[in-house]
């Protein structure tokens, strides 16, 4: 048995069969499956506690609060931040909306973004300012000259995407942030939802101001998005929502905000999911890094190699394995509908892949001119599975070939 298969055994959902057929989950850029320790952490909270956090003085509430805050620390430690610099929200979208709405930008604020950003890193900024998107080349790599040219216009905010959820390209954010610092005093907001599941980050070494990510894309439960913010910047950020838990004092005339990060966390949070998030990080930390990287290299090679050798598909993104995660997006020949292909790959072959515009329609329209098929692998997948996917795709596309074939005689 290979090492990959040992990881696979930790994911109970992969034991499922549909119509008597095992499943192959290759939609990991949308969300990942959950290992048993994460499921157990969530279950344990509900089976042994279930109380609300922070305001209660009773024993269960105290225990739940401890577990919740300990989880925040685990998440913060994973990215090299202090616990009070990590705001626990619902998802990356909410985190980015919080920053966009909370910076207090004037309506004519100039913001530089990137064409390959997820809608969550474009739309919140369009609501609060004028946005220019940095172009990408034909392979989805940022046009650095264009980026530098936009920086010369002295933006107030620069929004970066660490890794594209369409091309899988990992951008050199350290270099990009250095360029921003050299060119202007813009606030740098990084969407790392697609990158962090694959490689650990130190936010202070990166010199980023804000960074958003989602635990569900890195083995954690759904419903937990995280915002890192440098403490002095978080202190100036205006909360998106207010209410229970965000204030220290309320009287008929006003209120006193709580300290960061609590002032951004209105209402009862997803307690069990946050506790499960810490279990996800502990699981990732328990894996052998070199083994993970070797495995990721294999997946990348299988994904890219499979795409570039097939005439019936066009790889959207770089035609090589450098500087990318184990993800490929494919444009299908002759307008074969990606949605129909994804559905048949699922129901007939057991491969769960994504189709559509990937919530990155400007980029997909630019590079593919229509819907695409995305295959995103993670640590419980293996190269043989990717090869199986391509064989299934080959077979299916042969059935959908444009040529007219006469039917069998009766």
């Amino acid at each position, binding site marked *: 048995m290979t090492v990959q298969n040992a990881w696979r055994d930790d994911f109970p959902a992969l034991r499922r069969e549909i*119509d*008597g*057929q095992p499943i192959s989950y290759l939609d990991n850029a949308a969300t990942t499956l959950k290992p048993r320790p994460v499921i157990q952490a969530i279950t344990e909270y509900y089976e042994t506690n279930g109380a609300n956090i922070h305001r209660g003085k009773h024993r269960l509430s105290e225990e739940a609060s401890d577990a919740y805050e300990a989880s925040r620390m685990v998440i913060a430690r994973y990215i090299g931040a202090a616990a009070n610099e990590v705001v626990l929200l619902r998802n990356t979208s909410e985190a980015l909306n919080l920053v966009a709405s909370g910076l207090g930008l004037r309506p004519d604020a100039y913001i530089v973004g990137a064409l390959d950003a997820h809608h969550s890193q474009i739309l919140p900024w369009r609501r609060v300012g004028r946005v220019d998107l940095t172009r990408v080349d034909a392979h989805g790599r940022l046009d650095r000259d264009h980026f530098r040219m936009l920086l010369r216009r002295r933006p107030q905010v620069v929004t970066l995407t660490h890794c594209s959820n369409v091309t899988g390209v990992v951008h050199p954010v350290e270099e990009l942030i250095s360029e921003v610092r050299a060119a202007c005093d813009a606030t740098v907001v990084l969407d790392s939802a697609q990158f962090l599941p694959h490689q650990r980050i130190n936010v202070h070494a990166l010199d980023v101001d804000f960074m958003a990510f989602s635990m569900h894309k890195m083995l954690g439960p759904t419903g937990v998005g995280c915002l890192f913010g440098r403490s002095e910047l978080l202190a100036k950020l205006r909360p998106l929502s207010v209410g229970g838990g965000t204030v220290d004092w309320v009287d008929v005339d006003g209120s006193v905000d709580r300290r960061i990060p609590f002032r951004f966390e209105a209402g009862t949070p997803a307690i069990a999911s946050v506790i499960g998030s810490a279990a996800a990080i502990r699981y990732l930390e328990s894996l052998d890094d070199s083994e993970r990287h070797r495995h990721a290299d294999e997946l990348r090679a299988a994904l890219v190699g499979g795409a570039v050798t097939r005439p019936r598909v066009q790889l959207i993104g770089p035609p090589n394995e450098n500087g990318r995660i184990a993800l490929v997006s494919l444009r299908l020949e002759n307008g074969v509908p990606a949605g*129909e292909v994804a*559905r*048949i790959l699922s*129901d*007939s072959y057991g491969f769960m892949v994504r189709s559509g515009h990937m919530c990155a329609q400007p980029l997909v329209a630019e590079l593919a001119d229509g819907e695409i098929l995305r295959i995103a692998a993670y640590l419980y997948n293996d190269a043989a599975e990717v090869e199986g996917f391509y064989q299934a795709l080959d*077979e*299916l596309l*042969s*059935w*959908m*070939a*444009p*040529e*007219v*074939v*006469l*039917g*069998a005689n*009766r």
Partner: protein
Amino acid sequence: MIDSSNFEAVQEEITYAFENTVFFREHMQANRLRPEDIKAPEDLQRIPPTSKAHYRRNFPAGVLAKGYTLNSRDVMRFQSSGTSGDRLNSAILSYDLARRQATGLGVNRRFDELWRPGGRPRICRFAPPNCSDVECATGVSSLEDRTLPDGTLVLTVAHDLLATPEWQIVKALDEIEIYQPDLLVVDPTHFAFLVRCTRRLGRKITSPRKLHIVCGYTLMTRVARRQIEEFMGQEVPIGDMIGMSELGYLGFECHHGRRHINNIDFHVEFIRGGRSVEEGQLGELYVTTIDDCLVPRIRYATGDYFTPLGSSCECGSELPVVRIEGRATHMIQLRDGRIVTPGRVDSVIGDAPWLDLYQLEQSRTGTCTFRYIPNAKAQAREAAALEARLADALAPNEVRLEAVDYISCERSGKFQPCISRIPAEGA
């Protein structure tokens, strides 16, 4: 009761499927059977039934006949939402669809004038979104976007029927006026909703051509039918279609209001406990296609239950008469082991002029809740009388009535009048 009228054609279909499809050959071989083993109508039951799961998993490579692709001429591909998530990807030859439709509609004289030589009726569809092969619920699509290759116009409707916003209703009504259809192909619950909205808006559903209405997709309740008939008037022929996305017309309602099953383009069996049932008994419909060159299906268990009632009908058609009972997954399972079919529930409720919509839901514990949306004619005594009738029909299980102003659809957009949360183990 074994129908042997088209047995030779069935034998041919078995041989064709065996020789030309991977799945059916393996299915036969797994059961140590060859086509020549099926010598008499009784032998057919030696072939284990095939199911939607078989055709889903083996599509297209295992079930498309040798020589065809999904782009061969006259092949229509589709993805159906199925019922309660039992979805399917499949394909059908357009002329098989037309042949089965012609046989089905042939039992109803009021639909005769719809089909004229050389002409094709203009068809508008108002049905659950996932039944429509187009993304019709987005709200931004144009009439052209929603016109299928065969010319059928798909009208917009929200996934959650009762939450359909008014602009979408107005859009559907406007498009009917523009399109001027001969035929409305509708889900009866959806169309009854449209009728109520149309009445409220003071509008009409008309066409300069003679309108016909075919109802399909889900069980046509008497409540829905009453509303459609009252609004559209006696001049508009209404027919209830028995059909499945993957097979097309399996039967139709004749002009005397009885449902006939198509045993010309299909070999039909009504099975319970592995055996054919007698007339008057409930059985699951198994169909074997006749002369289907693309996706031949042998003993395809449809999951739909009927009671065969013989072949005599005053309409003159020789197609067997059936009573629609509903799907296995929708049947109410009583504590004493009996089942109550959606068809039976509907007959208990009747046309109920005092209510607009109903849904009977059985919980996992067996308790039944009857939710209904009353209308202006509703009076307490009618609800009380219905409660007594339902209590009688569903005893020993408890039933509770709830007057509500909203009932949700399933995610596919279909509205089921009768659902059970108890897993079905075959009716």
